[in-house]
């Protein structure tokens, strides 16, 4: 292999073909509310942990659907489960259980 001093830069593009339906169905079985998100961002806005680190349930759900479960985990690990997001969610998503379920299912594999 020759080193030319430059190389192929990795693509920043999301590949939805990488979305893992099987695991997602496990999540849905655990907490169906995951399908109800309308990405309004209320959860992120009120997040108690958000004051210290970037964390967002909205983005986490998105990351999972975009086939990036590890990113989702990173986004949710700082969660304090304080439940503010549950109170503001317009779609009445059971956010705390959703967060727990995501971590449970995607950290398992």
């Amino acid at each position, binding site marked *: 292999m020759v080193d030319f001093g430059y190389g192929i830069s990795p693509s920043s593009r999301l590949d939805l073909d990488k979305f893992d339906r099987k695991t997602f169905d496990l999540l849905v079985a655990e907490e169906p*509310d995951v399908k109800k998100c309308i990405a309004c961002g209320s959860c992120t806005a009120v997040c*108690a942990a958000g004051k210290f680190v970037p964390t967002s349930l909205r983005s986490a759900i998105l990351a999972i659907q975009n086939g990036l479960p590890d990113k989702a985990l990173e986004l949710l*690990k700082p*969660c*304090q489960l*304080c439940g503010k997001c549950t109170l503001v969610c317009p779609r009445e998503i059971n956010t*705390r259980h959703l967060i*727990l379920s995501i971590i449970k299912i995607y*950290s398992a594999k």
Partner: protein
Amino acid sequence: MTGLLNILCLLTVNPDSIPEVIDRIPSGYNHFVIPFLVGITFMLIWITVGLIRLLSNLTREDRIKLLLSWINPVIAWKNVRDLFCDCLFHVKIWKRKPLLGYMHSSIAFGWFMLIVLGHIEVALFVPKHLSFSEGALFYPIFYRFFVWMNPAHVALRGSFFFFLMDFFLLYVLSGIGLAVFKRFRSIVLGMRHTTKPSLADRIALYSLWLIFPLRLLAESFTADLSGGSFLTIPVNHLWHLIFGEKLWIMPVWWAYSISLGLFFVTMPFSRYMHILTEVLWILLRNAGIKPRHPRKGVAEAEIYACSSCGLCLDACPMNVQKKNLKYSSVYFIRFLRRKNEKKIDQIADKCLMCDKCHVLCPVSVDAPALRRVQRTTVNNHLPYDLSYLKAPIVQAGGSWSESLPMDSLKSGSNMESSAPEAVASDKVLYFAGCMSHLTPRIIKSVETIFKKSGVDYVFADRDGGICCGRPLMLAGKTDAAAKTIAANKEMIEKSGCKKLILSCPICYKVFKEDYHLEGIEIQHYTQFVNDLVNSGRLKPAQSSERLVYHDPCELGRGCQVYDEPRAVLGQVGELVSAAKERDESICCGGSLGSLTLDARDRAKITESSVSNLLANKPQTIVTACPLCLKTFAEAAPDSVHVKDFAEIVCSSLE
């Protein structure tokens, strides 16, 4: 015992006359006792093994704790009291539902007395049969079969016991009667829902029902030989009228023995195990030993102490919908016994943790605690990353000390010092908590109260803080909770304040129980305001507004704060009572305790909680928890206001 004997001797006319009781069957044995013997032996072996296993599952310090508790007079006395009140007299049930109380205590206490008196009789009249070789195990039980009573010589002493025995037999029978009746019309005894008994339960139940009628039958059959009293003798005459001179004694005694045997064999697999386990549980409970595993150790005692009486069914707020009955504590415990992991998980996550089942349980089985331990086994090991809490905390002194004076300036208090160590100790620290930030009216009112009463305060989390940790605990993430607790603890200690005021009961409970803040007084704002009013620093004006107070679970059942808020509200408006209050109050439905209960089910609970509060037509629902406030505000009919405690106190100050 001997003392008792002497007293009884005094009752005799002539101590050294011909014995009134003659050992009819000197061997003191007959084959019919075999079923009973088998049953009792099996049961005794079973519980001994169980007891050993249970104690071996306790940690060393827990075992020591237990031993110490017995020599500690306070706890020892509590043990004795609880054993009588809870196990024999079922005082807790009496208080809530007298008829039900009578039912339980009649069977428990009645039977207990029959056994005790039986032994006393043996001790008095045929003492030799108290020795094991002479059938101590069964002789006292079937005493009436083995003896012959000399009618000519029945002294007062004898008839006294005949009377007592018959009396307690009747007492038990009355309880059994009620129990049978309860099977069909439980509501009459004050129970809307009753548990569905398992197979073992049924067998044990029916044999239990049989035991005492059969005992009556047996003893009445032999009453003309071995004597009897106001119950057995007349019945005996009745039999003679029906069957003539010759009565077939043996079959009834066999039947009696079999029903006993059957009961004892099924007992370990049925709810009736509670009769014995209660004792152990009460000892462990009073020793202050907490469960570390949802099934092993203390938990085991707790699980088997559950009589699945079903009182928790009506207590559980979820059960406004029949479909949720299956999530009640009694079934949770039943599945714990059966080790049905899937069901256990499901039920553990549903519970709102309002603690009502625990508070109302006749033997105080702490199902919510078990649920939490269960959640811990599932969720505690899940990955989390609260390392970011370190960062701000390391120079927390710095960062917070920066923010503290700023906050306090913002808060408008007349505080000039800046560094946290310089913060005067008479300053109070106000920690609003996550939820209060979604109910600004609480924060605003609390601050107004502080200002109006000239309280010098520091607002710890004006622009958002760290969660108190209770929600993590409720979800079973105890390790993570420890992290947030440590962070907050450091912040509070650095603040230098000596008094901590909280406007959220969830925070209050965890701060009180798990923070161990040396030298810092922790108060919920209802308590603080109450003090202010009593000390005259706050003078609320009485209005004619009809108020009803909702006890937030964590504040009421959780921390036993019932009176302070009521005391204040009594001076603010006209306090009317709800249908169910204090221990009996109904969760608002918004609790963080439940992990899986969905919005629809919660709404139903809120509905029932609200209608409970509206029983006496109040104009305003007052609560002292941001979560309750938000939940009610969205659900209450427009005709009633929903206000926070601080808010209503504030409005009374204008």
